[in-house]
Each structure stands twice: as C-alpha cells, then as structure tokens.
C-alpha cells in the first residue's frame, strides 16, 4: 500500500508540473510566432524604415511601412489616459485610505470593481455615442472619430486599476510613519504628499507602469472611438489609429494570409508585445518586492 501511494504522490506532482509548463509554452509560442512572421516582413522592409518611417499605408498603393503614425496614435491615447487617470487614481486611493469610513469603503470598492469589469467594447460604445457628442458641444471642429474621446474612456478603464494598486501601496506604509508626522503637527494633505506618497513611491511607479501597459494594449474602445487614420499629430480632436486598432482593422477584413499586408499585423503585434512585455516585467518585479520590512 505504501509504495503505491508514494508513487501516486510522485505521479501527481509531475502531472501538475506538466500543467505549469503550459504557461511557459504560451509565452514561448507568442515569441516564436511573432518572430517568425516578423522576419518575413523584415526581409522585405528594412527595420529602420519600419521603426522611423513617418507613413503607414500598407494596404494602399504606394505602400509605405513606417510605424510611427501608429505609435503616435497609441501614445496619444496613453498619455491622455494616464494624464487623467493618475491624478484621479491618487485622489481616489487617498480618499479610500485617509478619509472614507469602512462603510463607505465597502460601497466604493465594489463600485470600482464593477467599473473595471465592464467589457471594453461597452466603453467603446460609450465613447462613440456619449463622450464624443459632449466633446462636440465644446469643440465644434472635432471629428467623429477622435483621440480625445478614446483617451477619456481608457482613463476611466484604467482608473480602478491605478486606484487599487496605489491603495495597496498606501496601506503598506507603516502606521508609525504617518503617526509620527501627525504627531509633529502635520495635517493630512501634508502627511499624504510628503510622507505617504514618497514612502509608497515604488508601488505608485509600478501602478503607473502597469496602467500604461494596459492602456497600450487596449483595443476595442480605441478601435470604435479613435478612428482608423494613421497619422502623426498632436491634436486630440483628430482621428488617429493605434497599433491595436490597426490589427483589428486588418484581421476583420479579408486580407489574404501570407502576403506582406498580413505580415504587418504580426510586426505591429511584435512591437506591441515588446513594449508591454518590458513594462510588465518591470512593474511586476517592483510589485513582488515588499515596500518596507516593518509593518
């Protein structure tokens, strides 16, 4: 009996280990397929032209493969969204941590979770049919598809994530540190801005990095609201196109597999992967470290 149960235990262990390996296989597969398809692309288009070219017209003649317009579009959304969501997230986290009673907190936290759980296509619809018309009353020259509307809804989407990560960061700041500052006669705004935020600094950085990564990868809201016009611009009232929106545009059409148009999807995907991968690694490493030893 004993050797059997011992063998079963070992068998169970290796079976589970095999399951663990699947997560590694997923990452490896993504890297392999993006590399493979991209290498086909780069045999025809030089890397420099792709990275620094200012025209992106792979589906139209004359074809041009400069990715900067898509990068420009993506980062307009990202800067706009984070620019709004970071201060808002700090305020919300502060409110939850310093001012809200436990009771209020128990209402607000789930409400923020609902906000985070709403599918992105719903945000896209909201941007298109609610945010843009409102913006139009303020800026009559705004285009139907525009970066501003996309950035606003992406800000709403990443707000719960920033607020919750910053909230965790605030909570990890030792009580004694706060009480020390209060004991010296500081008021809450001074304690938060001069003690709590600096002490939770790395966590806040991680929150921002992960939120940026999330905003870069965000697809449906910007596909629906921000348009399909790759261009280099700084005007948020114009139509743009993000990297993700480009992938959706091509894959939902009927471009033939194998051609260079098709490969552009993987190249843009590879660029998206590299950027978000680096940010996720940095963000997750920071998050996995304890903020301070004492609690």
């Amino acid at each position, binding site marked *: *009996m004993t050797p059997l149960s011992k063998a079963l235990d070992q068998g169970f262990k290796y079976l589970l280990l095999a399951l663990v390996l699947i997560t590694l296989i997923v990452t490896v597969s993504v890297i392999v397929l993006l590399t493979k398809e991209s290498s086909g692309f780069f045999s025809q288009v030089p890397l420099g032209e792709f990275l620094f070219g200012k025209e992106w017209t792979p589906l139209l003649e004359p074809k041009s493969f400069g990715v900067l317009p898509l990068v420009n579009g993506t980062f307009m959304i990202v800067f706009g969204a984070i620019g709004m969501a970071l201060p808002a997230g700090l305020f919300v986290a502060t409110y939850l941590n310093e001012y809200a009673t436990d009771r209020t907190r128990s209402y607000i936290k789930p409400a923020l979770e609902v906000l985070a759980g709403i599918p992105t296509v719903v945000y896209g619809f909201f941007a298109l049919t609610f945010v843009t018309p409102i913006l139009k009353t303020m800026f009559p020259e705004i285009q139907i598809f525009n970066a501003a509307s996309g950035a606003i809804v992406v800000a709403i989407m990443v707000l719960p994530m920033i607020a919750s990560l910053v909230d965790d960061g605030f909570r990890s700041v030792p009580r004694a540190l706060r009480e020390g500052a209060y004991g010296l006669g500081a008021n809450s705004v001074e304690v938060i801005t001069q003690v709590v935020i600096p002490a939770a600094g790395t966590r806040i950085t991680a929150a921002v990095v992960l939120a940026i990564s999330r905003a870069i990868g965000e697809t449906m809201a910007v596909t629906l609201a921000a348009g399909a016009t790759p261009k280099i611009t700084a005007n948020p009232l114009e139509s743009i196109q993000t990297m993700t929106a480009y992938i959706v545009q091509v894959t939902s059409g009927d471009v033939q597999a194998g051609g260079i148009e098709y490969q552009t999807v993987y190249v843009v995907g590879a660029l998206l992967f590299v950027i978000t991968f680096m940010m996720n690694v940095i963000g997750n490493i920071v998050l996995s470290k304890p903020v301070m030893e004492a609690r």
Partner: protein
Amino acid sequence: MSDPILGVKNLSVYYGESQAVKHVNLGFKDKSVTAVIGPSGCGKSTLLRALNRMNDFIPNVRIEGEVKYRNQNIYGKSMDPAEVRRRIGMVFQKPNPFPKTIYKNIIWGPKINGYKFDPDELVEKSLKGAALWKEVKDRLHDSALALSGGQQQRLCIARAIAMSPEVILMDEPCSALDPKSTLSIEELIGEMRKNYCIVIVTHNMQQAGRVSDDTAFFYNGDLIEFGATKKIFTNPDNSQTEDYITGRFG
C-alpha cells in the same frame, strides 16, 4: 519500567542559522507520559515536531543527530516520513478537526492509508478511547466544527487513536481551552497512559505535575534536566530547574 520506545540521540534542530535544539539525548518510555516543559522559545515544540518529522514542512529547518523509533532512525534514508507519522500520531495546540463530519474525521486517516476496518466499530472505539463517545454518539454525522473547543480537541485525539499509533505527541493540547475542558483532557491523558507512549509539551507546570510520569526541562534549546516528575518537582538537581519550577523565571 520498559525500555524507551522512542529516543533521540545527539539531536540538533536548526532554523536557518539559529539552533533551536542543541545536542539533546532523551528517551521516551512506552505506556507512560513524558512532559516537556520550559519557557516559551526554549525549543520544546521544535523537539516535539522533530519526533514525527513534522518539521519537514517548515522551510529552512535542518536536523542533525538521530531520532530512533523501535531502534530505527526515522531520519534514515530508507524511512518513509508518511509511515513514521502513521505510527507516531500528533495532537496540535489549537484543535484542528477537518471541516467535515465527526464520523469522517475519524475514518479519513485509516481510509487513505488503506487500512482494513469496520468504520462504525472504529469510530465507536476511537471516540470511546477519547472519552467523547457519550457526548456525540447521536450526532456522528454533524460537522465537527459545531463541537466545543474541548470536544474538538478530544476528537483530534480520537482521530489520532484511530490510526492505532504507539506514540502520541501532544503540543500544548490545552493551551486554547477553558479550565473545564482542560480537566477533561488531562483525565483522558491519565487513561491513555495505559496504552500509549505520550509526549506532551506544556508551558503549564501544574499540568506537567498532574499528568506526567517523567519530565524533561528545556532552556534555550538545551535539555537541562530529565527525570521522574516527582523528583523534578520536589527535589531537582539543577538550580535552573528549581528556579523555573518555583516560578522565579519563565
């Protein structure tokens, strides 16, 4: 007086760099109760957990020396730790019945270990052995978590008995209980002495005095003194033991 059924030889236990048990030699006799006493942090629980390899589950623990059960080193290469724990049962500080029925709590161990048994008979025998039968015989299929703390602890003892071990280790079994439940456990230990080798760790000296035949006093990881409980409590050889017994420290 019989030979020790369980003994430790030059046993040291380390947590990372710090040594919690230092070169201890000690024997536990069959069908008798040995109390292990000492101030908290003296290594008595660590020693106890070394006796049935429960320390295996704590990261960074390292063991040197031998623990001999029926003349076999339980840390020997060919030893199966699960087999060791079947023979040497354990009762923990806080009652930890499984969140299942009373009945299932008893038969789980024998079942997964492939013992052949009549479940009803085993449940009755084990519960009687733990002086719990009368109180629960009508609600064997109720959740064990509905029992009082003292009853839960006796259920844990019954669960250990069901495995028919020869040795039962008890790690401060009454520290989470009220005085009345404590009394019932102590009476039970008195009964169980007839059949088992019991090693009980306790910080309560009166308890050690009441239930044990022999007492080992630990301080700072060292075994300071070991002998018949009567002698340790009335006329210890070592002045540290005397200071502790009389309440001068600890």
